[in-house]
């Protein structure tokens, strides 16, 4: 069995982010000198210079993990903690950005910093590096937010990991929609089951 410890989300369409118990919003003023993700980073006073070098997918993963794990410091450095992420468009945005550095033969300067992010599982790797997770790290690309598929994969992984960060990070009409769960195989007093029905319900309450 798998249980939801907490969840975090980032929703660009209404400029909101938070967890189950905390909600914050980015204002137009916050966006004067920052893009949406950097505005969240600055609003939360995070300090991790590598953030600025990440592509958007990894930034989303980083921010979600920070939002979640700041409330659960005991999860840091867990040997059997894993990260499993899902989305629809893989690393396509970064792939295109990289392609733009090589498409013109007269201006052919492949960017190493972009190239390293042309795989979606770099997002899970960045989270593992940041929080010293040494369990499973994997990324799945699916056509849509498939709650049953996500629940089955995560539940299966909990046979080998004590705790899993698992999330969906995607872009709809260039707007970020991301939801990440902290999932445990241990039940606490008020934890809900991490099953298809519950995660679908949370996803719809935030994004539909």
């Amino acid at each position, binding site marked *: 069995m798998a249980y939801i410890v907490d969840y975090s989300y980032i929703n660009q369409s209404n400029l909101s982010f938070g967890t189950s118990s905390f909600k914050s919003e980015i204002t137009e003023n916050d966006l004067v000198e920052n893009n949406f993700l950097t505005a969240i980073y600055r609003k939360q006073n995070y300090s991790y*210079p590598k953030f600025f070098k990440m592509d958007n997918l990894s930034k989303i993963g980083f921010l979600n993990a920070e939002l979640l794990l700041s409330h659960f410091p005991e999860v840091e450095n867990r040997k059997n903690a894993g990260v499993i992420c899902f989305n629809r468009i893989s690393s396509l945005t970064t792939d295109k950005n990289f392609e733009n550095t090589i498409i013109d033969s007269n201006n052919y300067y492949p960017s*190493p910093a972009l190239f*390293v992010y042309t795989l979606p599982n770099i997002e899970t790797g960045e989270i593992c590096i940041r929080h010293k997770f040494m369990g499973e790290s994997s990324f799945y690309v699916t056509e849509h937010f498939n709650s049953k598929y996500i629940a089955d994969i995560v539940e299966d992984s909990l046979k080998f990991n004590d705790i899993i960060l698992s999330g969906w990070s995607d872009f709809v009409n260039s707007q970020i929609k991301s939801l990440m769960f902290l999932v445990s195989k241990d039940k606490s007093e008020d934890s809900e089951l991490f099953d298809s029905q519950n995660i679908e319900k949370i996803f719809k309450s935030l994004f539909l």
Partner: protein
Amino acid sequence: MDELILKLKREIIETLNLDDMKPEDIKDDEPLFGDGLGLDSIDALELIVLMEKNYGIKLRDASEGKKIFASVKVMADYIKDNR
């Protein structure tokens, strides 16, 4: 020379996404790698691309970078002598 150093600092900040830094935060003689700006191996590759793209200087031997990227001042000297 001072103009070139300032231009290089701006380019380094932009190319390496050092968003929290301003040119005045980078000292002319400060090491770019290790204890200085804390750049990594991907940053070194980006600097090699920067040298070629912005100054037409192609580093044939990647190990040269270790000496050339010792500091912004060393980079500027190298550009001045080789562009």
